[in-house]
């Protein structure tokens, strides 16, 4: 076993290693980024910082994996952020602490967590199913279909949100059980692992299996890779598009509940513009709008890059406006480096 590996390593030529590094450039970008930050501010190395970054990336990973599947199938989803906001508002409104004075439903008994979460996931799943239907059946460009849905969901959410008795007030006073659901942690002999990280890990594993080991995964890659060829190969394009959109909706719903719970409150603007971050993380992580390519690992890396930039730049104390400039430069460079591999050796 060990022999085999060392033989394998020896057999690697310099060129192979270079190619391999190129193929995985985006991981090295992340590594490089961490090294720079650490060299500027050595106290960045701490379990706490890494835990913070991972916990903060958690909901974003969930969202990115949702829209990532859609992008693989050559779609896109602008409604992500508003669906997250919807999920956050509904779950928060149904899970306020029984003794909280400004409850949206003063007479609502304390519900078991699972109920509102499933309800929310059902509704966001439905929204996204409709997205899929509009795209797959009505042949509307996904950009427009989901832009429309984004506006509609925002409208619906605002109407729900801005109601008597308290009007458009942030919904707070969450049931402590609900808050703990996102803010709690597992204690592994002193090492506290936030639940958020655990949820994100589980979702990542499930999506990885779906993408790599199931018919569903192969079919969405086929649809994204060449829809016409997929039809001829017997892929039920409509069905799988519906599935991939719906799956995304379920993830937005679940992540949106987590978002409310981790923030501790929700408004109709919660989640605003999250789609941009999620989509960008996917593309930085190697997905392509032309469809058919991408990996779960890439998406997770993409999200982490964004998170490390956000956290790291603040941590080393860079002026917020400068942070924008640096963030922009890093994103472009990361992708420029990564896309070296696509430049056909001419």
């Amino acid at each position, binding site marked *: 076993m060990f022999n085999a590996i060392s033989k394998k390593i020896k057999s690697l030529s310099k060129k192979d290693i270079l190619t391999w590094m190129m193929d995985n450039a985006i991981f090295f970008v992340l590594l490089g980024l961490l090294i720079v930050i650490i060299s500027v501010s050595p106290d960045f190395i701490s379990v706490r910082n890494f835990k913070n970054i991972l916990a903060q990336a958690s909901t974003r990973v969930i969202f990115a994996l949702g829209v990532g599947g859609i992008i693989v199938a050559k779609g896109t989803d602008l409604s992500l952020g508003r669906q997250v906001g919807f999920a956050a508002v509904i779950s928060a409104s149904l899970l306020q602490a029984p003794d909280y004075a400004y409850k949206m439903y003063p007479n609502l008994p304390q519900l078991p967590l699972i109920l509102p979460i499933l309800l929310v996931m059902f509704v966001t799943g439905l929204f996204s199913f409709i997205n899929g239907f509009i795209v797959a059946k009505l042949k509307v460009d996904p950009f427009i279909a989901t832009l429309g849905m984004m506006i509609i969901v925002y409208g619906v959410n605002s109407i729900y949100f801005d109601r008597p008795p308290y009007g458009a007030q942030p919904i707070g006073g969450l049931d402590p059980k609900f808050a703990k659901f996102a803010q709690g942690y597992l204690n592994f002999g002193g090492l506290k692992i936030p639940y958020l990280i655990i949820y994100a890990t589980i979702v990542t594993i499930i999506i990885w299996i779906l993408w790599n*080991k199931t018919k569903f995964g*192969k079919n969405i890659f086929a649809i994204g890779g*060449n829809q*016409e*060829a*997929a039809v*001829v190969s017997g892929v039920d394009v409509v069905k799988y598009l519906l599935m991939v959109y719906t799956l995304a909706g379920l993830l937005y719903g679940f992540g949106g509940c987590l978002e409310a719970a981790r923030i501790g409150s929700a408004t109709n603007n919660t989640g605003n513009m999250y789609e941009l971050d999620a989509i960008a993380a996917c593309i930085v992580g190697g997905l392509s709008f032309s469809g058919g390519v991408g990996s779960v690992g890439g998406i997770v890396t993409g999200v982490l890059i964004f998170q490390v930039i956000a956290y790291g730049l603040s941590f080393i104390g860079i002026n917020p406006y400068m942070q924008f400039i640096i963030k922009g430069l890093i994103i472009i460079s990361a992708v420029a480096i990564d896309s070296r591999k696509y430049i056909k050796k001419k």
Partner: protein
Amino acid sequence: MSSNNSQSKEKYLLEMIGITKEFPGVKALDGVQLKIRPGSVHALMGENGAGKSTLMKCLFGIYKKDGGKILLEGREVNFHSSREALDNGVSMVHQELNQVQTTRVMDNIWLGRFPKKGFFIDEDKMYNDTLKIFKELDIPIDPREKIQNLTVSESQMVEIAKAVSYDSKIIVMDEPTSSLTEKEVNHLFKIIRALKARGAGIIYISHKMAEIKEIADEVTIMRDGRWIATEFIENITTDEIINLMVGRDLTNRFPPKTNEPGEVILEVKNLTATYQPSIKDISFELRKGEILGIAGLVGAKRTELVEAIFGIRRIESGSIYLHGKKINNKNPREAIKNKFALVTEERRATGIFPVLSVRFNAFISNIDKYIKSNKLLDEKKIIDDTNWVINSMRVKTPSHKTLISSLSGGNQQKVIIGRWLLTEPEILLLDEPTRGIDVGAKYEIYQLMIDLANKGKGIIMVSSEMAELLGVTDRILVMSNGRVAGIVNTKETTQEEILKLSAKFL
């Protein structure tokens, strides 16, 4: 045109010497040479993946060669872009159609060199010049038609016209006839002869042996990225060419026909498509173990027929019986369930998944067979089957993980055929299956067809190559203008009879 008269026959128009080119994992060219005389047609031959297209792309500035020298009229050149190549008198008909589908024929012809009147494009000149070229070449296409409305062969003729219109010294034609019918091929040859007379050098790549014999003056043979031989065409026989190409003896072009048609398995009755013009009132039977050819001119709607059977086209009326039971292939999924398979005509549009691996491309149609009881896919079985495709079809690829788009055109085609064989179809529909396939591989495909027929499958093969229709089929259905012009027994028919039937309803 007469400037070349003074030059001796020994002066070369183009010399490519010691060209090498490497891709990750493949040495595509290894010291290849190619020398083209003025006023001659030089055939470039080799198996799929031998490196023919790559060599031409190095010439045309699409790829950068790793080593070697290119001399154009004795002067060393090294084009960095197609623009430079075109400006220096080299033009090319590409193996894969490279056209802007969303624009008009004339926009495509003049792309990169639009005529201008002051600041503006001279539309009238574009139109008139296009018309003139088309008239000269006898191509009946409206210059204002959108490319996406053309048939494959019409697009191909537009490409040829475009390459010719540059008035180049060197014209590369990479499998220009792969989607042309016999009649159009003759038409092309007329064009080529005129170019030759003008003193141009034509590099002609094709897998069709008969064409080579007819049109080429010289032939260069490549194998595995290496130069093997260059000969005047009169000094070499077809068999010798084939032997040099495949590196072994291949005396017969068609395997012995051992299949025996049995009882009827498929019955098509009065099939008419919904959206006309298309197929009308088509009826025929297919027997177990039979290979049924479908012949016809371009526009005969052969493609539509197989698409209709496979559930891609809506059917207005008529019915299909499998084993005497009426079936309804509403869509390809149903068709696959009913054990049909279809290798489509347009590989790039409806065949390959370009950004995905050979493995993915091989197993995707057969995916249901790999689902284990736990709903996950059986990775090992997938790899085994992919390897079966690669080996049995002799696909030239570094590994099953390679992206299919980096394979040579012919090898891509083999993967697609392999994909459908994995589904173990009972009825195999093949639309121009040997397009762009080398002789060796063709033989293998014919052999496969016959083997499948021997196993009791029914095979329908649409083809524009008369020789192969006559060589491997049992019966031939001749279509004309969407209708059945006749069904003949292969053994008893002739090329003439088929051609006559093809024109029946025109």
